[in-house]
């Protein structure tokens, strides 16, 4: 990863020629603006006559407006839930383990991180098996998206310290590439992903990481 972050510029001639790739032609600004304006006003009519803020909300969410009666029911149920949860919290006996976890949120984070790494390991093992059997199309991409989302949350949390961060960054790259494969992943793209896995020893590091508290920084 660290090597890949050192930018080696392209040959100046290629860099210059690349600027001609899909070189933009002038935009018909007037027509574009008219289309935007028309779409916005059409959306306003579709949503009925409302205040501008409500119109934006209704059009943005593409959901039918709730009737006042339904909104009142939903608000009532939500209020009941909040009151119930509040009473439950106040009357529940203090449990020591919960208190301990609250005092040290890093423990919960580390458990979540360990779980994420083992799930990633399982998913990438499945990915490699699918590549070998030539059935990459059957791979659940939604699972990769879910792992990618968790990975980003962990990267932004305190658990992503100097020890774990490089691994999470490498993992993000691999998962992002898998999610971008889509349903018609080209062979070359798949090969690039497996090369990335091999080059960074990602699988090995994933397996070592959960038990790596004693390892010095930079090992992962």
């Amino acid at each position, binding site marked *: *990863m660290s090597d*890949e*972050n*050192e*930018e*080696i*510029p*392209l*040959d100046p*001639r*290629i*860099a210059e*020629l*690349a*600027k*001609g*790739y*899909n*070189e*933009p*032609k002038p*935009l*018909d*600004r007037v*027509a*574009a*603006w008219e*289309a*935007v*304006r028309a*779409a*916005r006003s059409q*959306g306003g009519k579709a949503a009925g006559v409302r205040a*501008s*803020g409500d119109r*934006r*909300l209704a*059009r*943005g969410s593409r959901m039918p407006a709730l009737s006042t009666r339904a909104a009142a029911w939903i608000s009532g149920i939500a209020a009941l839930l909040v009151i119930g949860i509040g009473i439950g919290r106040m009357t529940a006996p203090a449990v020591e383990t919960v208190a301990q976890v609250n005092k040290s949120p890093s423990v919960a984070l580390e458990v979540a991180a360990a779980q994420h790494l083992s799930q990633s390991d399982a998913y990438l093992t499945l990915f490699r098996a699918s590549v070998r059997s030539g059935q990459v199309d059957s791979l659940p991409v939604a699972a990769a998206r879910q792992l990618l989302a968790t990975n*980003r949350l962990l*990267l932004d949390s305190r658990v992503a310290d100097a020890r774990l961060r490089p691994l999470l*960054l490498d993992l*993000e*790259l691999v998962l*992002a*590439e898998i999610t*971008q494969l*889509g349903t018609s992943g*080209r062979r*070359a*793209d798949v090969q*690039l992903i497996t090369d*990335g896995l091999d080059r960074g020893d990602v699988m090995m590091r994933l397996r070592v990481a959960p038990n790596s508290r004693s390892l010095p920084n930079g090992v992962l």
Partner: protein
Amino acid sequence: MHPGSQWLRRVPSNPFHAVCVYVLFHRPNPAPRSQVDDQQLIGRIQAGDPAAERQLFETYADRIHRIVYRFVGDPEASQDCVQETFIRAFDRLGTFRGESALGTWLGAIAVSVALNSLRGRKRDEKRHAPWEAAEVVAAPSARMSDPDLKTRLHAEIDQLPEGYRMVFLLHDVEGYTHEEIGTMLGVQSGTSKAQLFRARARLRDRLADFAPEASGT
């Protein structure tokens, strides 16, 4: 004596003349757009000012058009993408929290719209013929002239994986920073750097047979 000082000595002492001179000759440098400008603009749009909507469009239309055109490569589809980007942006303006520049936020919407457009089309249709032509002329050890290299390079950019291609175009062609690209694509800036590295490496590798100077080594 500096020539300018002669002119300075001739500046009218009459305040009215001084104001006229200032108005006629003062050409302030256009200041870069700040987040304050953008926040004011958003506030006006949310207050229902149609002129502010137009102003936002005029300010960012070209930038958005450049991004989507680089990805889509077709005038009509690009124009559709620009329109769709602004329609979505106006709808979601309430969700903009100012964590990034407004232009970057719009860029993220534009990237998403352009990708949807691309995935909805037959992706290789347009470049199919030039790609075949490029293979005919791409004999190893032949030193290619610029037009041939250009055709081949563009075909190779087309063949890059989607993530590499986006990062390459945004960084090397359009000049965005890795932080901006990270925001637009929803990835870490390190991922953007790694994808750019791999994109360049792949282009170098694929074009290495053209000429020694084209390999970039």
